[in-house]
């Protein structure tokens, strides 16, 4: 039995693609730097291992943990048995004063709640802390109703809203502070001084993909109308290129892992920091046999902003894949979205990615508020134009159709002209009245078919099913309650 001040665990269900989650390692590093002993356990990974030994039980439990429903009452025994087993395994190994549960998305809520109840039943002395973006159920602007309820019921002792590094230490030291049991969290402005994530409790041989997560910035430099990232992160804060490069080099040497994935909403928000980062990493990779590679999300920048030399350094620094929010081939639509890049910028960006052999996955939005058929045709024209770069465009992600999220500027700025009609996907816009849900679906279907004809990979089995389902809900004049079905996939998350 290991006595420790803090035990930090991940919980099911997050599909990490075989990668270890970062949060426990980050918090362990911070806690130990402040004089507390800390250990980590990846209960999410342990859960996924069950799929190899008992697929049927795994599927039943996964559906329950993710979707919160078990259609056959008899199967509830399975859940209780599993939670009990996990709680016993945790308590057989550790005797923590505090148990911190990293609730990565709302799809981790069901397990977290049952797990906390079980731990409290077995050892009420252990203080339980919940943290993570999954504390909020309905988007990042929603309230903290769920952890408040758990706290009132004494299922948990504390919760931490948003960033955990400073708040966790304050909680351990003082038991209170901004963002501790209240939503008034303070955004950390200085990221360079953060300690590196401590993965010493992780057995990397257990993971399918040996990749480490890394965070270079929080927030975004853009305020895209359809997105709520800038609503949550009050300010775009970023690390120096030197600091990011130092972490990559140090962590790769410490753990023997050379693949990194950025958790940032964008890597090239500050070109000064980005340039410094790629210069250092390019130099490092030239002089070391074990090359470091990395991937992440970028914003489009034209050649004047992200120069040819930046692109060469990008390649040499180890960039192997970017996700790019192109959204539309129409400047008029992108202007309305506040994407702030021209067609020329986009052409230059894709061309440079092609020349420098950095694959880009393109993210699109079909049926944005002001999108006309001419605008839509421009998106198709763009895809046709970029066919020549296809070897560096491994996939196109068109999502479903444009949905209006509460808290986004598109809603706040245009709500007088928008009717939601019972669902985020069912909206109509008075200034573009022919663009109803049927019209958006037409464009979405055509887009997918044209992508395939042009030779792009587009994986959307679940997407089409979802759209068919939404369509049926709309024609029955029912309320839309479902907006996605793959929220548990790590690569779909926009923040860590």
């Amino acid at each position: 039995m290991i006595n420790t001040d803090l035990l930090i665990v991940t919980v099911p269900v997050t599909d990490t693609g075989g990668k270890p989650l970062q949060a426990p390692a980050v918090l362990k590093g911070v806690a130990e730097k402040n004089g507390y002993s800390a250990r980590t356990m990846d209960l999410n990974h342990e859960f996924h291992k069950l799929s190899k030994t008992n697929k049927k039980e795994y599927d039943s439990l996964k559906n329950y943990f993710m979707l919160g429903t078990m259609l056959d009452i008899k199967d509830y025994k399975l859940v209780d048995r599993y939670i009990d087993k996990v709680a016993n395994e945790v308590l057989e190994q550790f005797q923590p004063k505090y148990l911190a549960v990293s609730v990565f998305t709302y799809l981790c809520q069901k397990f977290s709640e049952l797990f906390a109840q079980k731990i409290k039943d077995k050892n009420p002395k252990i203080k339980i802390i919940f943290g993570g973006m999954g504390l909020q159920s309905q988007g990042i602007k929603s309230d903290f109703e769920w952890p408040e309820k758990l706290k009132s019921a004494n299922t948990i002792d504390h919760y931490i809203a948003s960033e955990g590094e400073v708040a966790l230490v304050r909680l351990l030291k003082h038991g209170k502070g901004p963002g501790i049991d209240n939503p008034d969290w303070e955004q950390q402005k200085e990221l360079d001084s953060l300690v590196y994530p401590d993965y010493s409790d992780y057995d990397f041989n257990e993971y399918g993909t040996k990749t480490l997560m890394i965070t270079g910035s929080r927030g975004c430099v853009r305020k895209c109308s359809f997105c709520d990232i800038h609503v949550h992160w009050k300010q775009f804060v970023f690390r120096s290129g030197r600091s990011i490069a130092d972490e990559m080099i140090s962590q790769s040497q410490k753990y023997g892992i050379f693949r990194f994935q950025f958790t940032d909403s964008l890597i090239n928000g500050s070109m000064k920091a980005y340039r410094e980062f790629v210069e250092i990493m390019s130099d490092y990779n030239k002089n070391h046999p074990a090359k470091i590679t990395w991937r992440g999300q970028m914003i489009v920048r034209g050649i004047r902003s992200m120069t040819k030399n930046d692109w060469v350094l990008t390649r040499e620094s180890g960039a192997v894949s970017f996700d790019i929010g192109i959204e539309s081939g129409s400047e008029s639509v992108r202007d309305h979205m506040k994407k702030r890049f021209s067609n020329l910028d986009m052409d230059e960006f894709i061309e440079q990615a092609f020349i420098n052999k950095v694959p880009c996955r393109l993210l699109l939005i079909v049926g944005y508020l002001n999108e006309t058929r001419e605008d839509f045709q421009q998106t198709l024209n763009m895809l046709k134009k970029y066919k020549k770069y296809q070897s560096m465009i491994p996939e196109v992600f068109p999502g479903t159709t444009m949905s209006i999220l509460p808290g986004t500027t598109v809603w706040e700025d245009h709500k007088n002209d928008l009717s939601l009609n019972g669902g985020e996907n069912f909206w109509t816009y008075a200034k573009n009245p022919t663009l109803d849900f049927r019209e958006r679906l037409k464009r979405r279907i055509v887009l997918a078919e044209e992508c395939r004809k042009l030779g792009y990979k587009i994986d959307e089995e679940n997407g089409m099913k979802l759209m068919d389902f939404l369509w049926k809900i709309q024609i029955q004049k029912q309320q839309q309650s479902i907006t996605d079905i793959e929220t548990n996939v790590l690569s779909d998350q926009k923040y860590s």
Partner: protein
Amino acid sequence: MIISFILDVHNYRGGPNIKISVNDLCVFDKQLKKKGINQLDLDVNDFKLPGKIVIEQYGKNMNKDTKVNPVGGILDDKGVSILSVKLGQCELKYEIYLFKFYKQDGEILQNINYLGYNGSFVIPIDDENVNKWKQSLQKYMLKTIDDFDYNKFKQEIFSEGPNLVVNYD
């Protein structure tokens, strides 16, 4: 909370005896005599969630209460189809097919909304928030659905309104 049921009644030999229980408390128990659509609006006080709703048919004589022709085809029956269940503002339609019907003899029937035997149709609500629960059901449905027909969907979408012509000129 008002719980509403829209039921399509087959009233052969007087109609089905239907009992509805909410969290094991009987809130409705009657023979439904009127053929066709029947709407039941039940005011259920203190409906604690998570919980369950059970719709039970009882007293059906399987030898007498189904009218069949000489070759076994059903001409009329005593039974009920559940078309809609509404919990406050949260309405279930497609989701009804997810639940199970436990026949009195122990057999479990799935993917149906018709109560043609004596037994219980069970709706387990395993969340405090019915809207969140419905979302879970829909996600579950989408993940397990295997009869999605892309061509039918496309045909339906393009059946009305102006056609969408692609022109790369």
